[in-house]
């Protein structure tokens, strides 16, 4: 057999890439730009292990108004955008109601650019990260906005520096309400199989706590409970059969895996309700999705509402309003208040940035 040489590797890659050519290339679809009218969604089939109500409403979109976005749906006034895994050189601050940029924040000179960003709940204070790949360190900053959305200050938080680089997946950084505490998911910088870590840091004192993760596991979708004490996230590792939802309690230091459905179920995102009593999550079983309420007191699913069938891997984004939990699945938003679910179809491109 031919010996593996650099030339053979190059030739093989060239041939492999050449199996797709311009003639057979599927044209790129234009991103959705058109304004859409609100529509009344099809009657959602509602199943309930206990009592649950799905309330559906329709509001016509007014011509000339800014398009509806997830940020406006949760009541945010400003959106901060521009933190990227490879380092954004500048953040933009946009006013949600007008879609107008009201401020720009350049990344600190000599830094990697902004890697991650998270809101602290007041829509005026944000935590940001930059990274030093050579030193394998992540650095944190606090951005504050004035009442009109313009940047007031960017403050380095040297006591919050953590080792490691940004982990894979969405929502690697979570700021507790008020911004006094953060949680960051990282992986090691070596060439071996990356091991995930979650570091919880008290921003004022620099006191930190490492969340013990199973060997080979990495975390994503980090979200603080309103009490700033409990943290939810999901874990995955090679060889695992799906995602594993977890709850970390800073007071006890305990990490607890959570089961949200029968065998074969997978959950896709979760967030603790404003009253702190339940974890609300999207769970898929056999292609059917449902919102489940998992009681943090009884440690069992107490309610669930069917969302109907859907593909297994549709991206989802969650955001929290002041008194509710909001999910986005494709171009449909779901607002959860208590055990009530409201649903609305919106444009599909209003889900970037943080608030």
């Amino acid at each position, binding site marked *: *057999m*031919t010996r*593996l040489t*650099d030339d*053979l*590797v190059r*030739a*093989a*890659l*060239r*041939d*492999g*890439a*050449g*199996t*797709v*050519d*311009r003639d057979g*290339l*599927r*044209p*790129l*679809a*234009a*991103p959705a730009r058109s304004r859409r009218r609100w529509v009344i969604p099809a009657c959602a089939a509602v199943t309930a292990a206990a009592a649950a109500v799905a309330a559906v409403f329709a509001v016509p979109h007014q011509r000339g108004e800014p398009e509806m976005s997830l940020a406006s749906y949760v009541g945010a006034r400003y959106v901060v*955008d*521009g933190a*990227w*895994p*490879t380092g*954004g*050189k*500048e*953040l*933009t601050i946009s006013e949600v109601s007008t879609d107008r*940029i009201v401020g720009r924040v350049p990344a600190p000179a000599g830094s990697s650019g902004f890697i991650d960003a998270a809101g602290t709940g007041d829509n005026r204070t944000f935590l940001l990260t930059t990274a030093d*790949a*050579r030193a*394998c360190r992540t650095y944190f900053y606090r951005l504050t906005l004035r009442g009109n959305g313009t940047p007031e200050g960017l403050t380095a938080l040297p006591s919050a520096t953590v080792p490691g*680089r*940004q982990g*894979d*997946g969405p929502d690697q950084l979570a700021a507790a309400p008020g911004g006094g505490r953060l949680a960051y998911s990282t992986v090691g*910088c*070596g*060439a071996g*199989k*990356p091991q995930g870590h979650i570091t919880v840091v008290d921003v004022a004192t620099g006191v930190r706590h490492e969340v013990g993760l199973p060997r080979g596991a990495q975390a994503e979708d980090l979200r603080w409970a309103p009490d700033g004490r409990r943290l939810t996230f999901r874990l*995955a590792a*090679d060889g*695992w*059969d*799906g*995602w594993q939802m977890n709850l970390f309690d800073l007071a006890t230091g305990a990490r607890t895996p959570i089961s949200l459905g029968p065998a074969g179920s997978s959950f896709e995102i979760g967030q603790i309700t404003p009253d702190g009593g339940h974890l609300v999550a999207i769970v898929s079983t056999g292609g059917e999705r449902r919102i489940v309420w998992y009681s943090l007191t009884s440690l069992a699913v107490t309610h669930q509402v069917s969302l109907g069938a859907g593909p*297994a*891997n549709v991206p989802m984004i969650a955001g929290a309003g002041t008194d509710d939990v909001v999910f986005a699945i494709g171009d449909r938003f779901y607002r959860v208040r208590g055990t009530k679910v409201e649903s609305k179809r919106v444009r599909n*491109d209003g*889900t*970037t*940035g943080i608030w």
Partner: protein
Amino acid sequence: MTFDRSPTAAVARDAGTPGDGVAELFRVHHLALVRLALLMLGDRAGAEDVVQDVYARLHRRRRAVPDVPDELLAYARASVLNACRTLLRRRALMSRLVQAPDPVWSAENDVLIADDRRRVLQALLKLPPRQREAIVLRYYLDLSEAEIAAAMGVRRGTVKSTVARGLNALGERYQEER
């Protein structure tokens, strides 16, 4: 390396928007990005889906992406690799339930590739994603260590060791493919 310059319908329309570097980038580099994703994933449909998804995401955030074409291309490459990584991870998680698509260059597909090269490609798909990325960026795109580090989000020293480990592993898998 040269990039294909075939325009596609959507980006050709969008490219008329002043300052829309994202549309222009995809007008010029669409095929090259699909080929990059193809080498990472092995299947064409997945590769095209990944690039479509990255295009849509970058287009939504076009006000915040780099406006220097080289930086934007580097960012698009990194985004494609990141999306491939996510898809591979999901496929690994779903592997007990869903059969992953056959690679486009597998013996079952009617693609003319010399046998030894086909074995290299089969071996490539057995490498961990990070090693696969390093090999593809180094030997297909001929990127420098600094460019590979930027695309993978790792240190330059890590690039060197990852490429070396990847080549060793590729050689072992290649021998197993005989």
